[in-house]
């Protein structure tokens, strides 16, 4: 009886509970209505931008390197595109299709091949990435939010999580793309004979470091330390974040032109002509870089290597290491076998090379003293080895410049800054 009693109470309660007919929705509209609304807002925003959109894509494999695009979306699922991938993708407009689709989130899909897919192609022969993954970039993007004024749209790749951003273009920017105005002269920065370069804006003087491989730029002086990715625009280059100093904001360089004879690059900043010139000493010497370089290898019980050889007077691999059959890289092994000497070796089928002792001055200059050789130097390499010894033992020594957050350093001679080696921890 007692059991039945509880059962009555339970069933009566169930009756009342079952009667509750109202849904308690957090949102007034159904999920479908809401997603349609979001998609149509994005669609209107994308297609109504009269001058199209500038886009930056950061592939996940090299997530600090921006690639720039220009998109013009129409209402018939077509998109016109330019890209700074190479000179032809910047000068030939290509049209393909796009779609907005509700996947797990509202998404923007570039659903037939165009320039944006070059970064994604799993054939590494096309983009220099990985076989089977490319640069781990995307062409299916989650629409990840829009600024309140509708000028900026954030995108996140669905497969590889690459980041991208779309910014409304101005009429001039759009016109510059369609007029096929191109300027690749910024790439001539590799033709400066000295390692160090200085930017003079009229408001400030800075050291400027340009890494073309990773499209990154560093602008430094006593007051400011700025680094950013850069990308090509129809008239020059733009930074992916603004540089501010001396009461001025710089978003990039326009009208870049290069004079080989004068070793001078002229550019426009905010409408004003500025210059980059060559110099043998930077404003700011990283005085601990040499010992950091050395100790990183000691701590890791490892060595540095450089497969590009030694750059001298504008020429890569000046001493022609690559002519040594089987040459793999030049190496630097601090305190080799705890001998107190470093091993600066040629790695080919065997290895051999000079022994050095490195000394670090407080002013940031590293000097090398010769202490004999490691292993037997084959006859065919004797000239190469004596060239290396002469170069390393220059009495004026070397500056070190850290080129990334990882253990990569450039070693630049103090005498004229026209010789350098790029080291990477093995």
């Amino acid at each position, binding site marked *: 009886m007692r059991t*039945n009693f509880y*059962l*009555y109470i339970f*069933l*009566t309660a*169930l*009756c009342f509970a*079952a*009667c509750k*007919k109202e849904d308690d929705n957090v949102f007034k509209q*159904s999920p*479908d*209505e809401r*997603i*349609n609304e979001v*998609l149509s807002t994005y669609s209107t925003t994308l297609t109504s931008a009269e001058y199209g959109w500038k886009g930056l894509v950061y592939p996940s494999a090299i997530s600090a390197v921006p690639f720039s695009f220009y998109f013009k979306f129409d*209402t*018939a*699922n*077509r998109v016109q595109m330019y890209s700074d991938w190479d000179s032809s993708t910047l000068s030939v407009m290509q049209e*393909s*299709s796009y*779609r907005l*689709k*509700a996947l797990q989130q509202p998404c923007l*899909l*570039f*659903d*037939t*091949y165009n320039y944006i*897919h070059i970064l*994604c*192609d*799993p*054939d590494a022969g096309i983009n220099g990435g990985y*076989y*089977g*993954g*490319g640069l*781990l970039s995307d*062409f*299916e993007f989650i629409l990840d939010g829009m600024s309140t004024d509708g000028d900026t749209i954030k995108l996140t790749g*669905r*497969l*590889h999580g690459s980041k991208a951003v779309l910014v409304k273009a101005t009429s001039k920017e759009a016109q510059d793309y369609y007029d096929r105005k191109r300027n690749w002269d910024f790439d001539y920065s590799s033709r400066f004979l000295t390692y160090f370069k200085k930017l003079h804006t009229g408001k400030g003087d800075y050291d400027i470091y340009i890494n073309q491989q990773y499209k990154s730029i560093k602008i430094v002086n006593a007051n400011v330390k700025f680094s950013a990715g850069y990308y090509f625009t129809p008239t020059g280059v733009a930074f992916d974040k603004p540089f501010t100093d001396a009461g001025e904001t710089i978003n990039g360089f326009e009208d870049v032109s290069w004079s080989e004879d004068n070793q001078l690059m002229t550019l426009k900043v905010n409408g004003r002509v500025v210059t980059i010139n060559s110099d043998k000493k930077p404003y700011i010497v990283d005085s601990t870089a040499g010992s950091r370089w050395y100790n990183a290898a000691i701590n890791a019980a490892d060595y540095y290597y450089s497969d590009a050889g030694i750059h001298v007077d504008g020429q890569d691999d000046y001493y022609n290491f690559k002519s040594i059959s089987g040459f793999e890289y030049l190496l630097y092994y601090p305190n080799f076998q705890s001998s107190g000497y470093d091993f600066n070796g040629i790695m080919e089928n065997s290895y051999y090379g000079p022994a050095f002792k490195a000394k670090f001055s407080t002013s940031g200059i590293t000097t090398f003293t010769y202490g004999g050789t490691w292993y037997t130097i084959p006859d065919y390499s004797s000239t190469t080895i004596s060239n290396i010894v002469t170069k390393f033992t220059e009495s004026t020594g070397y500056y070190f410049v850290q080129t990334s957050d990882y253990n990569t350093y450039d070693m630049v001679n103090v005498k004229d800054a026209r010789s350098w080696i790029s080291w990477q921890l093995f």
Partner: protein
Amino acid sequence: MKPLNALFFFLLVIALAACSKENDDLSGVQDIPGLGGDTWVEDSLDKWLYDSLTVPYNIEVKYKWDQFEFDVTKTLVPPKEEVVIPAMQAIMKVWIDNYIKYAGELFFKKYSPKFFILSGSASWNDNGTITLGTAEGGRKVVMYLLNEFRTKEMDGYQLGDTANVKQIFHVIEHEFGHILHQNIMYPTEFKKISVGLYTANWNNIYDSDAHQDGFVTPYAMSSENEDFVEMIATMLIEGKEGFDRIVNSVQDKTSDNGTTQAQAVAALRQKEAMVVNYYKSAYDVDFYALQKATRDSINALFY
């Protein structure tokens, strides 16, 4: 019935009835995004595909990207729009037109796979190999590497491009072969020809070693069914001459598995004869005529 139990029953009925007072409201169903498939503004390419393949053969070609048609973990890219029509035209010439000519339109419409998915790139496998085609359930065929599809009419064509394109044809003929034997089984004697030599390790075997064991391709060694359809695909794509070349390439030595040259050649010839007989008895198709026409179509595209 005791009054107590009656009450119990009554309450239970109320409880259940209370749950279903109202019909579900289905009025919002048309709002579900993507219901009924993807839509977009159709252009001349969509119209060409519809008129050339969907209307006559009920074949749908999906060239716009849809990740869910592929292995979702793979990095792939969609095809370039300009390759879609040339690729499908070539497939029509090599595969559709010839089967219709030698087996009849009804036959083709009845058995053809109905859904073609296109990918611009190859599908890269973990072991570094690439996949150029897959198929599911006799209905769907996925073709890869369309962006490198080139025939002699297209810009930048090189003789080396034929390898990719022939692979694509091979995949289609292969999958179509599966559909045929799934409808009418080939004679079980076929399974006895190479008994004991089938292996899951086929992907580590060179073409020449497969030939030496009496198989037309390494993949043919994976099972009897694959053996049968690889025979069909290779014989059609390479033509009689090409197939004879494969048979003649078997060298005068005994394979690692103990197959002699004579045994390997006999196995290949026996399989060839069974495929030809199968086409005749099951579908009343003259295989050699179909083979010649198919190879002629391929020659016309490339050479």
